[in-house]
Protein backbone atom coordinates (compact mmCIF):
# COMPACT_ATOMS: atom_id res chain seq x y z
CA UNK A 1 0.00 0.00 0.00
CA UNK A 2 1.09 3.61 -0.57
CA UNK A 3 2.11 5.70 2.41
CA UNK A 4 1.58 9.30 1.26
CA UNK A 5 -0.70 10.80 3.87
CA UNK A 6 2.33 12.69 5.15
CA UNK A 7 2.60 14.53 1.81
CA UNK A 8 -0.75 16.29 2.37
CA UNK A 9 -0.59 19.13 4.90
CA UNK A 10 -4.35 19.42 5.37
CA UNK A 11 -4.51 15.81 6.57
CA UNK A 12 -2.04 16.59 9.36
CA UNK A 13 -4.47 19.02 11.00
CA UNK A 14 -7.16 17.45 13.20
CA UNK A 15 -10.79 18.40 12.49
CA UNK A 16 -12.66 19.18 15.71
CA UNK A 17 -9.94 17.36 17.61
CA UNK A 18 -10.16 14.22 15.51
CA UNK A 19 -8.08 12.68 12.73
CA UNK A 20 -9.49 14.02 9.44
CA UNK A 21 -10.88 11.09 7.45
CA UNK A 22 -11.38 12.64 4.03
CA UNK A 23 -13.65 10.40 1.95
CA UNK A 24 -14.79 13.01 -0.56
CA UNK A 25 -11.95 12.91 -3.05
CA UNK A 26 -14.42 12.40 -5.93
CA UNK A 27 -15.72 15.93 -5.20
CA UNK A 28 -12.25 17.40 -4.94
CA UNK A 29 -8.93 15.87 -3.97
CA UNK A 30 -6.61 17.32 -1.37
CA UNK A 31 -3.35 18.81 -2.60
CA UNK A 32 0.13 17.49 -1.85
CA UNK A 33 2.94 19.79 -0.70
CA UNK A 34 4.55 19.55 -4.12
CA UNK A 35 1.54 21.20 -5.78
CA UNK A 36 1.20 23.91 -3.15
CA UNK A 37 4.93 24.64 -3.33
CA UNK A 38 4.97 24.72 -7.15
CA UNK A 39 2.27 27.40 -7.14
CA UNK A 40 4.14 29.46 -4.54
CA UNK A 41 7.38 29.03 -6.46
CA UNK A 42 5.77 30.20 -9.69
CA UNK A 43 4.62 33.43 -8.07
CA UNK A 44 7.92 33.95 -6.28
CA UNK A 45 10.13 33.54 -9.32
CA UNK A 46 8.40 33.21 -12.70
CA UNK A 47 5.20 35.26 -12.72
CA UNK A 48 4.44 37.51 -15.70
CA UNK A 49 1.79 37.50 -18.41
CA UNK A 50 2.82 34.75 -20.84
CA UNK A 51 2.99 35.28 -24.62
CA UNK A 52 3.30 39.03 -24.15
CA UNK A 53 6.44 40.12 -22.35
CA UNK A 54 9.57 40.45 -24.50
CA UNK A 55 11.65 40.51 -21.36
CA UNK A 56 13.29 37.48 -19.78
CA UNK A 57 10.73 37.08 -16.99
CA UNK A 58 7.87 37.05 -19.51
CA UNK A 59 9.69 34.36 -21.46
CA UNK A 60 10.00 32.26 -18.29
CA UNK A 61 6.25 32.54 -17.68
CA UNK A 62 5.63 31.42 -21.28
CA UNK A 63 7.97 28.48 -20.74
CA UNK A 64 6.03 27.44 -17.65
CA UNK A 65 2.71 27.34 -19.47
CA UNK A 66 4.24 25.53 -22.47
CA UNK A 67 5.88 23.03 -20.16
CA UNK A 68 2.60 22.40 -18.35
CA UNK A 69 0.82 21.73 -21.64
CA UNK A 70 3.55 19.33 -22.71
CA UNK A 71 3.38 17.44 -19.41
CA UNK A 72 -0.40 17.10 -19.67
CA UNK A 73 -0.14 15.96 -23.30
CA UNK A 74 2.46 13.31 -22.43
CA UNK A 75 0.35 12.20 -19.49
CA UNK A 76 -2.78 11.55 -21.57
CA UNK A 77 -1.18 10.31 -24.77
CA UNK A 78 -1.85 13.37 -26.89
CA UNK A 79 0.07 15.99 -28.87
CA UNK A 80 0.68 19.38 -27.24
CA UNK A 81 -1.60 21.20 -29.72
CA UNK A 82 -4.47 18.91 -28.78
CA UNK A 83 -4.54 20.12 -25.17
CA UNK A 84 -6.71 23.17 -24.44
CA UNK A 85 -6.61 24.62 -20.94
CA UNK A 86 -10.03 25.56 -19.55
CA UNK A 87 -11.41 26.33 -16.08
CA UNK A 88 -12.75 22.87 -15.44
CA UNK A 89 -14.59 19.89 -16.93
CA UNK A 90 -17.80 21.91 -17.22
CA UNK A 91 -16.18 24.59 -19.35
CA UNK A 92 -14.50 21.94 -21.49
CA UNK A 93 -17.86 20.31 -22.26
CA UNK A 94 -19.49 23.67 -22.93
CA UNK A 95 -16.68 24.60 -25.31
CA UNK A 96 -17.35 21.48 -27.40
CA UNK A 97 -21.14 21.84 -27.13
CA UNK A 98 -21.25 25.45 -28.28
CA UNK A 99 -18.56 25.32 -30.95
CA UNK A 100 -18.49 21.84 -32.46
CA UNK A 101 -22.05 21.06 -31.38
CA UNK A 102 -23.76 24.19 -32.69
CA UNK A 103 -21.89 23.91 -36.00
CA UNK A 104 -22.45 20.21 -36.61
CA UNK A 105 -25.74 19.24 -34.98
CA UNK A 106 -28.99 19.91 -36.81
CA UNK A 107 -32.71 19.32 -36.46
CA UNK A 108 -33.43 15.61 -36.73
CA UNK A 109 -30.02 14.57 -35.32
CA UNK A 110 -29.51 12.65 -32.10
CA UNK A 111 -27.16 13.50 -29.23
CA UNK A 112 -26.60 10.30 -27.29
CA UNK A 113 -25.95 10.85 -23.57
CA UNK A 114 -25.47 8.28 -20.80
CA UNK A 115 -28.09 8.89 -18.11
CA UNK A 116 -25.40 8.46 -15.43
CA UNK A 117 -23.67 11.64 -16.60
CA UNK A 118 -22.83 14.40 -14.19
CA UNK A 119 -25.05 17.41 -15.01
CA UNK A 120 -21.98 19.04 -16.58
CA UNK A 121 -22.05 16.53 -19.44
CA UNK A 122 -25.84 16.56 -19.78
CA UNK A 123 -27.23 20.08 -19.39
CA UNK A 124 -25.07 21.68 -22.15
CA UNK A 125 -26.27 18.97 -24.56
CA UNK A 126 -29.90 19.53 -23.58
CA UNK A 127 -29.40 23.20 -24.44
CA UNK A 128 -27.77 22.41 -27.80
CA UNK A 129 -30.68 20.08 -28.59
CA UNK A 130 -33.18 22.77 -27.75
CA UNK A 131 -31.48 25.35 -29.94
CA UNK A 132 -30.85 23.07 -32.91
CA UNK A 133 -33.99 20.93 -32.84
CA UNK A 134 -31.94 17.80 -32.24
CA UNK A 135 -33.04 15.10 -29.78
CA UNK A 136 -31.19 13.90 -26.68
CA UNK A 137 -31.31 10.10 -26.54
CA UNK A 138 -30.34 8.55 -23.20
CA UNK A 139 -28.50 5.30 -22.67
CA UNK A 140 -29.45 3.50 -19.46
CA UNK A 141 -27.45 1.20 -17.20
CA UNK A 142 -28.65 -2.34 -16.47
CA UNK A 143 -29.67 -3.48 -12.97
CA UNK A 144 -26.00 -3.77 -11.96
CA UNK A 145 -25.23 -0.22 -13.05
CA UNK A 146 -23.42 -1.39 -16.19
CA UNK A 147 -23.81 0.21 -19.64
CA UNK A 148 -24.10 -2.85 -21.88
CA UNK A 149 -23.03 -3.16 -25.51
CA UNK A 150 -26.59 -4.06 -26.33
CA UNK A 151 -27.81 -0.71 -24.94
CA UNK A 152 -25.10 1.10 -26.92
CA UNK A 153 -26.25 -0.63 -30.12
CA UNK A 154 -29.88 0.20 -29.33
CA UNK A 155 -29.33 3.92 -28.76
CA UNK A 156 -26.41 4.88 -31.01
CA UNK A 157 -27.78 5.00 -34.54
CA UNK A 158 -27.11 6.63 -37.91
CA UNK A 159 -28.94 9.70 -36.57
CA UNK A 160 -26.39 10.08 -33.76
CA UNK A 161 -23.92 12.95 -34.17
CA UNK A 162 -22.09 12.68 -30.87
CA UNK A 163 -22.00 10.28 -27.92
CA UNK A 164 -21.29 11.87 -24.51
CA UNK A 165 -20.29 9.52 -21.78
CA UNK A 166 -18.34 9.45 -18.53
CA UNK A 167 -15.47 6.99 -18.46
CA UNK A 168 -16.34 6.35 -14.79
CA UNK A 169 -19.65 7.45 -13.23
CA UNK A 170 -19.27 9.76 -10.25
CA UNK A 171 -22.07 7.89 -8.47
CA UNK A 172 -21.56 4.25 -9.44
CA UNK A 173 -17.79 4.30 -9.84
CA UNK A 174 -18.17 1.80 -12.67
CA UNK A 175 -16.03 2.12 -15.79
CA UNK A 176 -17.71 1.92 -19.16
CA UNK A 177 -16.43 -0.28 -21.96
CA UNK A 178 -15.01 2.68 -23.87
CA UNK A 179 -13.66 0.48 -26.65
CA UNK A 180 -17.09 -0.90 -27.49
CA UNK A 181 -18.65 2.55 -27.19
CA UNK A 182 -16.18 4.21 -29.55
CA UNK A 183 -16.32 1.33 -32.03
CA UNK A 184 -20.12 1.58 -32.15
CA UNK A 185 -20.14 5.38 -32.40
CA UNK A 186 -17.52 5.53 -35.13
CA UNK A 187 -19.24 2.77 -37.10
CA UNK A 188 -22.25 5.09 -37.52
CA UNK A 189 -20.11 8.21 -38.08
CA UNK A 190 -20.70 9.76 -34.62
CA UNK A 191 -18.09 11.52 -32.54
CA UNK A 192 -17.34 10.56 -28.93
CA UNK A 193 -16.73 12.85 -25.97
CA UNK A 194 -15.42 11.08 -22.87
CA UNK A 195 -15.82 12.78 -19.51
CA UNK A 196 -12.74 11.59 -17.64
CA UNK A 197 -13.18 13.77 -14.54
CA UNK A 198 -13.76 10.71 -12.34
CA UNK A 199 -11.40 8.32 -14.10
CA UNK A 200 -8.26 10.40 -14.62
CA UNK A 201 -7.10 10.21 -10.94
CA UNK A 202 -7.39 6.42 -10.86
CA UNK A 203 -5.57 4.99 -13.89
CA UNK A 204 -3.48 6.03 -16.89
CA UNK A 205 -5.32 7.18 -20.01
CA UNK A 206 -3.96 7.22 -23.55
CA UNK A 207 -6.39 9.25 -25.64
CA UNK A 208 -4.72 8.40 -28.96
CA UNK A 209 -4.88 4.71 -28.17
CA UNK A 210 -8.45 4.96 -26.85
CA UNK A 211 -9.47 6.74 -30.04
CA UNK A 212 -11.97 9.20 -28.57
CA UNK A 213 -12.61 12.47 -30.41
CA UNK A 214 -12.84 14.67 -27.33
CA UNK A 215 -11.96 14.07 -23.67
CA UNK A 216 -12.35 16.39 -20.70
CA UNK A 217 -11.21 16.51 -17.08
CA UNK A 218 -10.48 18.85 -14.15
CA UNK A 219 -7.22 19.50 -12.38
CA UNK A 220 -8.70 19.58 -8.89
CA UNK A 221 -9.80 15.95 -8.94
CA UNK A 222 -6.26 15.01 -9.95
CA UNK A 223 -4.68 16.53 -6.80
CA UNK A 224 -4.04 19.76 -8.73
CA UNK A 225 -5.56 23.21 -8.22
CA UNK A 226 -9.15 24.27 -8.69
CA UNK A 227 -9.93 26.45 -11.69
CA UNK A 228 -7.84 24.52 -14.20
CA UNK A 229 -9.37 22.01 -16.59
CA UNK A 230 -8.42 20.26 -19.78
CA UNK A 231 -10.06 19.67 -23.12
CA UNK A 232 -8.43 17.14 -25.38
CA UNK A 233 -9.62 17.20 -29.00
CA UNK A 234 -8.27 15.51 -32.09
CA UNK A 235 -6.20 18.12 -33.93
CA UNK A 236 -8.26 18.08 -37.11
CA UNK A 237 -11.48 18.61 -35.15
CA UNK A 238 -10.07 21.47 -33.08
CA UNK A 239 -8.65 23.12 -36.22
CA UNK A 240 -12.09 23.10 -37.83
CA UNK A 241 -13.85 24.57 -34.80
CA UNK A 242 -14.67 28.22 -34.21
CA UNK A 243 -13.38 29.86 -31.00
CA UNK A 244 -15.57 29.69 -27.89
CA UNK A 245 -14.59 32.86 -26.02
CA UNK A 246 -12.88 35.61 -27.97
CA UNK A 247 -10.69 38.57 -27.07
CA UNK A 248 -7.09 38.90 -26.00
CA UNK A 249 -4.36 36.40 -26.84
CA UNK A 250 -6.52 34.15 -29.03
CA UNK A 251 -6.21 36.24 -32.19
CA UNK A 252 -4.01 36.34 -35.27
CA UNK A 253 -4.61 39.84 -36.68
CA UNK A 254 -7.33 42.27 -35.61
CA UNK A 255 -8.57 45.05 -37.87
CA UNK A 256 -11.58 47.33 -37.65
CA UNK A 257 -13.40 44.85 -39.86
CA UNK A 258 -12.70 41.68 -37.92
CA UNK A 259 -10.05 39.27 -36.76
CA UNK A 260 -8.27 36.04 -37.54
CA UNK A 261 -7.56 33.40 -34.94
CA UNK A 262 -4.41 32.10 -33.36
CA UNK A 263 -3.43 28.49 -34.05
CA UNK A 264 -5.00 25.60 -32.15
CA UNK A 265 -5.06 25.35 -29.15
CA UNK A 266 -4.48 29.02 -28.36
CA UNK A 267 -7.52 30.18 -30.30
CA UNK A 268 -9.56 28.55 -27.51
CA UNK A 269 -7.66 30.27 -24.72
CA UNK A 270 -8.90 33.85 -24.61
CA UNK A 271 -7.63 36.35 -22.08
CA UNK A 272 -5.00 36.01 -19.38
CA UNK A 273 -4.94 32.38 -18.33
CA UNK A 274 -4.70 30.56 -15.04
CA UNK A 275 -0.97 29.90 -15.25
CA UNK A 276 -0.66 29.05 -11.56
CA UNK A 277 -3.31 26.40 -12.20
CA UNK A 278 -1.39 25.00 -15.13
CA UNK A 279 1.83 24.95 -13.10
CA UNK A 280 0.04 23.26 -10.20
CA UNK A 281 -1.51 20.67 -12.49
CA UNK A 282 1.90 19.89 -13.96
CA UNK A 283 3.28 19.41 -10.45
CA UNK A 284 0.37 17.10 -9.55
CA UNK A 285 0.96 14.91 -12.61
CA UNK A 286 4.69 14.68 -11.88
CA UNK A 287 3.95 13.79 -8.27
CA UNK A 288 1.52 11.03 -9.28
CA UNK A 289 3.95 9.70 -11.89
CA UNK A 290 6.64 9.54 -9.21
CA UNK A 291 4.38 7.32 -7.07
CA UNK A 292 3.82 4.94 -9.98
CA UNK A 293 0.45 4.27 -11.51
CA UNK A 294 0.50 0.53 -10.81
CA UNK A 295 0.98 1.42 -7.15
CA UNK A 296 -1.86 3.95 -7.22
CA UNK A 297 -4.22 1.46 -8.85
CA UNK A 298 -3.27 -1.36 -6.49
CA UNK A 299 -3.63 0.90 -3.44
CA UNK A 300 -7.08 2.15 -4.40
CA UNK A 301 -8.34 -1.28 -5.46
CA UNK A 302 -7.35 -2.73 -2.12
CA UNK A 303 -8.99 0.14 -0.21
CA UNK A 304 -12.26 0.02 -2.15
CA UNK A 305 -12.51 -3.76 -1.85
CA UNK A 306 -11.69 -3.63 1.86
CA UNK A 307 -14.37 -1.00 2.41
CA UNK A 308 -16.96 -2.80 0.28
CA UNK A 309 -16.38 -6.04 2.19
CA UNK A 310 -16.83 -4.20 5.49
CA UNK A 311 -19.98 -2.44 4.36
CA UNK A 312 -21.54 -5.67 3.12
CA UNK A 313 -21.18 -7.11 6.64
CA UNK A 314 -23.26 -4.26 8.10
CA UNK A 315 -27.05 -4.66 8.13
CA UNK A 316 -29.43 -2.08 6.60
CA UNK A 317 -26.89 -0.70 4.10
CA UNK A 318 -27.73 -0.60 0.42
CA UNK A 319 -24.83 -0.20 -2.05
CA UNK A 320 -25.43 1.01 -5.61
CA UNK A 321 -23.79 -0.53 -8.64
CA UNK A 322 -22.27 -3.96 -8.87
CA UNK A 323 -19.37 -4.52 -11.22
CA UNK A 324 -15.83 -5.86 -10.82
CA UNK A 325 -14.25 -2.65 -12.18
CA UNK A 326 -15.15 -0.05 -9.56
CA UNK A 327 -12.99 3.03 -9.25
CA UNK A 328 -12.77 5.23 -6.20
CA UNK A 329 -16.41 5.63 -5.14
CA UNK A 330 -19.00 3.69 -3.17
CA UNK A 331 -22.51 5.14 -3.11
CA UNK A 332 -24.91 3.85 -0.50
CA UNK A 333 -27.91 4.48 1.71
CA UNK A 334 -28.58 3.60 5.33
CA UNK A 335 -32.13 2.29 5.62
CA UNK A 336 -34.60 4.87 7.04
CA UNK A 337 -31.90 7.55 7.49
CA UNK A 338 -31.63 10.49 5.10
CA UNK A 339 -28.17 10.89 3.51
CA UNK A 340 -27.75 14.38 5.00
CA UNK A 341 -28.22 12.96 8.46
CA UNK A 342 -25.78 10.17 7.60
CA UNK A 343 -23.20 12.77 6.52
CA UNK A 344 -23.72 14.89 9.66
CA UNK A 345 -23.34 11.90 11.96
CA UNK A 346 -20.19 10.68 10.18
CA UNK A 347 -18.83 14.23 10.32
CA UNK A 348 -18.98 14.14 14.10
CA UNK A 349 -16.43 11.28 13.91
CA UNK A 350 -14.21 13.31 11.58
CA UNK A 351 -15.40 11.46 8.46
CA UNK A 352 -16.22 13.60 5.38
CA UNK A 353 -18.59 12.02 2.85
CA UNK A 354 -20.77 13.60 0.20
CA UNK A 355 -24.56 13.37 0.47
CA UNK A 356 -27.25 14.36 -2.01
CA UNK A 357 -27.89 13.83 -5.69
CA UNK A 358 -24.22 14.19 -6.70
CA UNK A 359 -25.13 16.42 -9.66
CA UNK A 360 -26.65 13.34 -11.31
CA UNK A 361 -30.37 13.78 -10.71
CA UNK A 362 -31.59 11.75 -13.72
CA UNK A 363 -29.50 8.76 -12.59
CA UNK A 364 -30.84 9.12 -9.03
CA UNK A 365 -34.39 9.01 -10.37
CA UNK A 366 -33.49 6.02 -12.49
CA UNK A 367 -32.15 4.22 -9.40
CA UNK A 368 -35.37 5.20 -7.64
CA UNK A 369 -33.58 6.73 -4.68
CA UNK A 370 -33.43 10.51 -5.09
CA UNK A 371 -30.47 10.84 -2.74
CA UNK A 372 -27.59 8.82 -1.42
CA UNK A 373 -24.32 9.12 0.45
CA UNK A 374 -20.99 8.59 -1.26
CA UNK A 375 -17.64 7.60 0.18
CA UNK A 376 -14.78 8.18 -2.24
CA UNK A 377 -11.12 7.35 -1.95
CA UNK A 378 -7.76 8.78 -2.90
CA UNK A 379 -4.12 7.87 -2.66
CA UNK A 380 -3.83 9.24 0.88
CA UNK A 381 -6.59 7.13 2.40
CA UNK A 382 -5.65 4.15 4.54
CA UNK A 383 -7.33 1.07 5.96
CA UNK A 384 -7.38 2.92 9.26
CA UNK A 385 -9.59 5.57 7.59
CA UNK A 386 -11.91 2.83 6.36
CA UNK A 387 -12.09 1.28 9.83
CA UNK A 388 -13.15 4.58 11.40
CA UNK A 389 -15.74 5.06 8.65
CA UNK A 390 -17.17 1.54 9.05
CA UNK A 391 -17.33 1.85 12.81
CA UNK A 392 -19.15 5.17 12.57
CA UNK A 393 -21.46 3.91 9.82
CA UNK A 394 -22.46 0.90 11.91
CA UNK A 395 -23.77 3.13 14.72
CA UNK A 396 -25.96 5.46 12.68
CA UNK A 397 -29.32 3.69 12.86
CA UNK A 398 -29.10 3.15 16.58
CA UNK A 399 -28.13 6.79 17.05
CA UNK A 400 -31.22 7.89 15.14
CA UNK A 401 -33.44 5.77 17.36
CA UNK A 402 -33.85 2.65 15.25
CA UNK A 403 -33.44 -0.79 16.80
CA UNK A 404 -30.23 -1.65 15.02
Amino acid at each position, binding site marked *: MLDVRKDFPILQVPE*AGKRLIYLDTAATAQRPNRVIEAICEYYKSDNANPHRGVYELGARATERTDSARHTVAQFVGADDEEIVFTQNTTESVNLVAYTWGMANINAGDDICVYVAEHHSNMVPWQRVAKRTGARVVYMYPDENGVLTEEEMRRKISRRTKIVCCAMVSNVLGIKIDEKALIERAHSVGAKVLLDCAQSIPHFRHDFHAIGCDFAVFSGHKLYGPMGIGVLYGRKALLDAMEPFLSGGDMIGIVTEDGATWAETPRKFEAGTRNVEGEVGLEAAIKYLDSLGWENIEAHERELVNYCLAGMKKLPHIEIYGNAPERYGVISFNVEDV*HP*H*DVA*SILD*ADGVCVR*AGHHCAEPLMRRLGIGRCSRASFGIYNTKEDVDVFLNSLGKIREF*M*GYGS
Partner: protein
Amino acid sequence: MDLRSLYNQVITEKSRSNEHRHPVDDCTCSLEGVNPSCGDDITLQLRVKDGVIEDVGFMGAGCAISQASTALMIDILKGKTVAEAKELIDVFFGMIKGEIGEDDERLELLEDAAALKGIAHTPARVKCAVLAWHTMEEALDK
Protein backbone atom coordinates in the same frame (compact mmCIF):
# COMPACT_ATOMS: atom_id res chain seq x y z
CA MET B 1 -19.65 19.41 17.70
CA ASP B 2 -21.78 17.58 20.22
CA LEU B 3 -23.93 15.49 17.94
CA ARG B 4 -26.63 14.96 20.52
CA SER B 5 -27.28 18.70 20.74
CA LEU B 6 -28.25 18.46 17.08
CA TYR B 7 -29.97 15.09 17.11
CA ASN B 8 -31.57 15.14 20.53
CA GLN B 9 -34.43 12.88 21.52
CA VAL B 10 -37.13 15.40 20.57
CA ILE B 11 -35.72 15.69 17.06
CA THR B 12 -35.15 12.01 16.37
CA GLU B 13 -38.62 11.13 17.65
CA LYS B 14 -40.38 13.99 15.88
CA SER B 15 -38.62 13.18 12.61
CA ARG B 16 -40.47 9.88 12.54
CA SER B 17 -43.84 11.20 13.72
CA ASN B 18 -46.77 10.99 11.32
CA GLU B 19 -49.14 13.07 13.43
CA HIS B 20 -49.25 16.05 11.07
CA ARG B 21 -48.50 14.15 7.90
CA HIS B 22 -51.83 14.49 6.14
CA PRO B 23 -53.71 16.71 3.70
CA VAL B 24 -55.97 19.38 5.21
CA ASP B 25 -59.72 19.45 4.47
CA ASP B 26 -60.97 22.70 2.86
CA CYS B 27 -57.42 24.10 2.93
CA THR B 28 -57.13 27.80 2.12
CA CYS B 29 -53.46 27.62 1.11
CA SER B 30 -51.14 24.89 -0.13
CA LEU B 31 -47.48 25.73 -0.63
CA GLU B 32 -44.41 23.69 -1.52
CA GLY B 33 -40.98 24.42 -0.07
CA VAL B 34 -37.84 22.88 -1.59
CA ASN B 35 -34.13 22.90 -0.81
CA PRO B 36 -32.77 22.14 -4.28
CA SER B 37 -29.25 21.39 -3.11
CA CYS B 38 -30.26 18.61 -0.72
CA GLY B 39 -33.73 17.68 -1.88
CA ASP B 40 -35.78 18.43 1.22
CA ASP B 41 -39.25 18.86 -0.22
CA ILE B 42 -42.37 19.58 1.81
CA THR B 43 -45.84 20.79 0.97
CA LEU B 44 -47.70 22.64 3.72
CA GLN B 45 -51.48 22.84 3.72
CA LEU B 46 -53.31 25.37 5.92
CA ARG B 47 -56.86 26.27 6.72
CA VAL B 48 -56.99 29.86 7.98
CA LYS B 49 -60.36 31.20 9.04
CA ASP B 50 -61.06 34.63 10.58
CA GLY B 51 -57.35 35.17 11.15
CA VAL B 52 -56.89 31.87 13.00
CA ILE B 53 -54.81 28.92 11.75
CA GLU B 54 -57.37 26.19 12.28
CA ASP B 55 -55.49 23.30 10.77
CA VAL B 56 -52.07 22.56 9.25
CA GLY B 57 -50.73 19.38 7.66
CA PHE B 58 -47.73 18.50 5.52
CA MET B 59 -46.53 16.00 2.99
CA GLY B 60 -43.08 15.38 1.63
CA ALA B 61 -39.69 13.97 2.49
CA GLY B 62 -36.32 15.13 3.68
CA CYS B 63 -33.70 14.74 6.35
CA ALA B 64 -34.53 14.24 10.03
CA ILE B 65 -33.88 17.91 10.81
CA SER B 66 -36.30 19.18 8.15
CA GLN B 67 -39.00 16.66 9.02
CA ALA B 68 -38.73 17.21 12.78
CA SER B 69 -38.69 20.98 12.33
CA THR B 70 -41.87 20.83 10.25
CA ALA B 71 -43.69 18.71 12.81
CA LEU B 72 -42.55 20.90 15.72
CA MET B 73 -43.65 24.03 13.90
CA ILE B 74 -47.13 22.65 13.28
CA ASP B 75 -47.34 21.65 16.96
CA ILE B 76 -47.04 25.24 18.10
CA LEU B 77 -48.66 27.18 15.24
CA LYS B 78 -51.89 25.20 15.00
CA GLY B 79 -54.68 27.17 16.68
CA LYS B 80 -52.69 30.41 16.81
CA THR B 81 -53.74 33.65 15.11
CA VAL B 82 -51.79 34.69 12.03
CA ALA B 83 -50.21 37.57 13.99
CA GLU B 84 -49.11 35.25 16.82
CA ALA B 85 -47.73 32.77 14.30
CA LYS B 86 -45.65 35.43 12.57
CA GLU B 87 -44.21 36.50 15.89
CA LEU B 88 -43.25 32.91 16.73
CA ILE B 89 -41.67 32.44 13.32
CA ASP B 90 -39.49 35.51 14.01
CA VAL B 91 -38.46 34.10 17.37
CA PHE B 92 -37.56 30.82 15.66
CA PHE B 93 -35.37 32.59 13.07
CA GLY B 94 -33.75 34.57 15.88
CA MET B 95 -32.88 31.32 17.66
CA ILE B 96 -31.46 29.72 14.51
CA LYS B 97 -29.33 32.77 13.76
CA GLY B 98 -28.02 32.65 17.32
CA GLU B 99 -29.44 36.13 18.06
CA ILE B 100 -31.59 34.76 20.85
CA GLY B 101 -29.34 33.26 23.53
CA GLU B 102 -29.83 29.96 25.32
CA ASP B 103 -31.27 31.57 28.48
CA ASP B 104 -33.56 34.03 26.70
CA GLU B 105 -37.09 33.53 27.98
CA ARG B 106 -38.53 34.00 24.50
CA LEU B 107 -37.27 30.47 23.74
CA GLU B 108 -40.06 29.17 25.97
CA LEU B 109 -42.59 30.49 23.46
CA LEU B 110 -41.24 27.97 20.98
CA GLU B 111 -42.04 25.05 23.32
CA ASP B 112 -40.47 21.83 21.95
CA ALA B 113 -39.28 23.62 18.80
CA ALA B 114 -36.55 25.09 21.03
CA ALA B 115 -34.96 21.62 20.72
CA LEU B 116 -33.63 22.87 17.37
CA LYS B 117 -31.42 25.52 18.97
CA GLY B 118 -28.29 23.39 18.38
CA ILE B 119 -28.64 24.17 14.66
CA ALA B 120 -27.24 27.63 15.35
CA HIS B 121 -23.84 25.91 15.71
CA THR B 122 -24.22 23.82 12.54
CA PRO B 123 -24.34 26.23 9.59
CA ALA B 124 -24.51 23.42 7.02
CA ARG B 125 -27.89 22.30 8.36
CA VAL B 126 -29.61 25.65 8.89
CA LYS B 127 -31.45 25.42 5.59
CA CYS B 128 -32.97 22.09 6.68
CA ALA B 129 -34.31 23.59 9.90
CA VAL B 130 -35.78 26.76 8.40
CA LEU B 131 -37.46 25.27 5.32
CA ALA B 132 -40.89 24.70 6.87
CA TRP B 133 -40.81 28.04 8.70
CA HIS B 134 -39.97 30.02 5.56
CA THR B 135 -42.67 28.17 3.68
CA MET B 136 -45.18 28.94 6.44
CA GLU B 137 -44.18 32.60 6.49
CA GLU B 138 -44.77 32.80 2.76
CA ALA B 139 -48.09 30.96 3.04
CA LEU B 140 -49.33 33.35 5.73
CA ASP B 141 -48.49 36.33 3.52
CA LYS B 142 -50.61 34.98 0.70
